[in-house]
């Protein structure tokens, strides 16, 4: 199906109408060739390009394609990347995510000036990043200090270290248990999506059926 031409309005429509981050990514990737034809010499086109590439960048992050996000920055026009504030923010965010510098990730997301069009994506990514990190901590830690957990999850580490009940409550809300005597939290592993499991079983059944057919 042919997509409507790329414009600021169309970009906003794509962002608001995409039901999932994966679909947002796929739709935006279809526009990359069209974006490639725009010129940064024209100020209107440069603004559109800035919005497009920043949105596309976030669609990578929201689908956990960090490496691909990095590669996509290498395809952006060099001059635009160096001068545009939104894309510079994206680069800062990428660097922090790539280096797993959690404090910096939250700082970039919360404190840098993002354009109004990008703010919903920035907020979505913050929630996504927190959720992803929570799963990773749950898998990686048997016990964790509240301050460390707070740093990973973008909460206040100082109040967490002092045993602030509100912060601890936020963390126990994830199903973790709080050992007050030891001053440690025990994360609870997060279960995987059962739909993914079912799909894999179906695919395996197909393989077994194929092997069975060939044997006969």
């Amino acid at each position, binding site marked *: 199906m042919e997509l409507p031409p790329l414009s600021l309005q169309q970009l906003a429509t794509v962002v608001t109408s995409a039901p999932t981050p994966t679909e947002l990514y796929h739709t935006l990737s279809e526009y*990359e*060739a069209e974006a*490639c*034809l725009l010129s940064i010499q024209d100020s209107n086109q440069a603004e559109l390009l800035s919005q497009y590439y920043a949105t596309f960048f976030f669609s990578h992050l929201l689908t956990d394609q960090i*490496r*691909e996000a990095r*590669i996509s920055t*290498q*395809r952006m026009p060099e001059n635009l990347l160096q001068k545009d504030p939104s894309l510079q923010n994206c680069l800062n965010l990428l660097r922090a995510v790539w280096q*797993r510098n959690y404090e910096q990730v939250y700082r970039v997301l919360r404190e840098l000036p993002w354009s109004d069009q990008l703010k919903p994506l920035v907020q979505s990514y913050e929630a996504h990043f927190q959720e992803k*990190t929570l799963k*990773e*901590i749950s*898998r*990686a*830690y*048997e*016990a*964790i*200090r509240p301050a*460390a957990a707070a740093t990973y999850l973008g909460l206040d580490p100082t109040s967490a270290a002092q045993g602030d009940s509100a912060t601890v409550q936020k963390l126990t809300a994830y199903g973790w248990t709080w050992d007050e005597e*030891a*001053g*440690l939290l025990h994360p609870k*592993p997060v279960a*995987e999506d059962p739909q993914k*499991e079912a799909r*894999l*079983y179906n*695919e*395996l059944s*197909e*393989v077994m059926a*194929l*092997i069975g057919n*060939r044997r006969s």
Partner: protein
Amino acid sequence: MAESLSYLTSVSSQLLSVDKISDDRYDCQIRDLIAYIKRSDKSLDTEFLLNNLNPSQHTLPYLFMLNLRVGSLQKKTRNTSPDEIKPGNDLWVKAVCFLRTFDPIQVRYAGNEWRRLIELIGQAAEAAAKPFLAVQVIRDAILRLDSLCGILSSVHVIFLRLCLLSRSYSYALPVLERQIFHFSTGQVQAYRKYIDHPLCSKNTPKDFFLSDASELSVKLTYRDHVQYFLYGGMIYMALKEWDKSLHWLSIVITSPVNDSVSKIMIEAYKKRMLAGLLGHGKLAPVPKTISSHVLKVFQSLTKPYMSLSEAFERNDFPRLRAEVDIGRSIWRIDNNEGLVSQLYNAYNSFLVLKLGRTFSALTTADVAQQAFTSLESSSKVENFVASLVMAGYLGATMLHLKSPGNATMLHFSGLPETYITRERGVRAWLAKEGQALKMITNGVDQCSNELKLGNENLQLVSKNQRWPDSSGKSGGNVIGEADGIGLEIDEDIMGDNN
């Protein structure tokens, strides 16, 4: 001109009802159409026709008109890439639209024109320093022509090159991840002459319409073959899929040679060494199919890489750093500087992984003492180890201790969920391999038919018919006899291995 348009549209519209007309009639009509276009090409108003034909319905006339238009502009401007075909201009838009919507059956009859258009699009995008523009278009066109993509063509090589140039590595995956199981040889088996399947028939084997004769691909050379697999290996390296890159680069270094090895093979050997270090922390074993003299050539031409690998494998960080510095100009000339720069991080990761093979648990302070002299503080080591565990590279869990010193214990023995993760990985792998198996099975069936009807087997049959006593059977099962020969060959192969 309206008359020509009316004729072209009416004939190609009839072709669209492919299910309703027989293959022979379709074949006959389409050949007539080609003859008509070729006969009247000088009198046709290509611009008018391009504006009035629909590329998805009138694929064949549209393709010819595009080529005629480009040809006339090239002649007029004496430029192989006239302005009209440059990205964004009129002919570019038309060509892109065509390549996204063409009818794959009609294109079988105009392989040369289709291929030339792809080449032109690639050249134009590259000339405008925007190779990415051609990547999606060519990928979609390759998959549209042959969704299985099991036959290597010259267009594949062009496509991977553009993917590398434009750094659009993941865009290559839909093509790369389809198994190539046919190589166009240019030789058409004799029996094919007696099988009456027109090009348009769904029973026509894909390697037949994608053969050299169809001109959808130019004749592939040895260089094209190794280049394709080198490019594929490089793309997988860029995506950090080390095992796949090792496999693709192994195909390059095991390519048959006469006396000397090619430069491309040397390049692949160097990259393969680095892929082994980055993916597994050690050099990947050399495939047994490489002869000893070829291996000696490889080793003699890659000595700096060998020294680098030794330092890496022996956990000698000062030497590794020295080797990286000494060979800097070599890595740059070989375009391997980026890969070499990744060695430091890989070195640190594999150090921790190796500790897991010796110890069941360590504090992160012990990890720092045992492994890292390169990282400054134990907090940096802890962050590094935590990043490995959280990213899933290191099968371990971390435990913050109650003690006042803020110690962290690293348990290398995986929890039960590690097994679950592994099992899930194996299941995903099995499902993926299953898909590949399905495709290869179809290919094997086709190959089996080829072998039964191929020139060599037919010669063998005729020989056996001349000497009926020699086989001990008269007539009988031809395949059974061939199987007997197969067993002998098998034993020879086993003998070589021993």
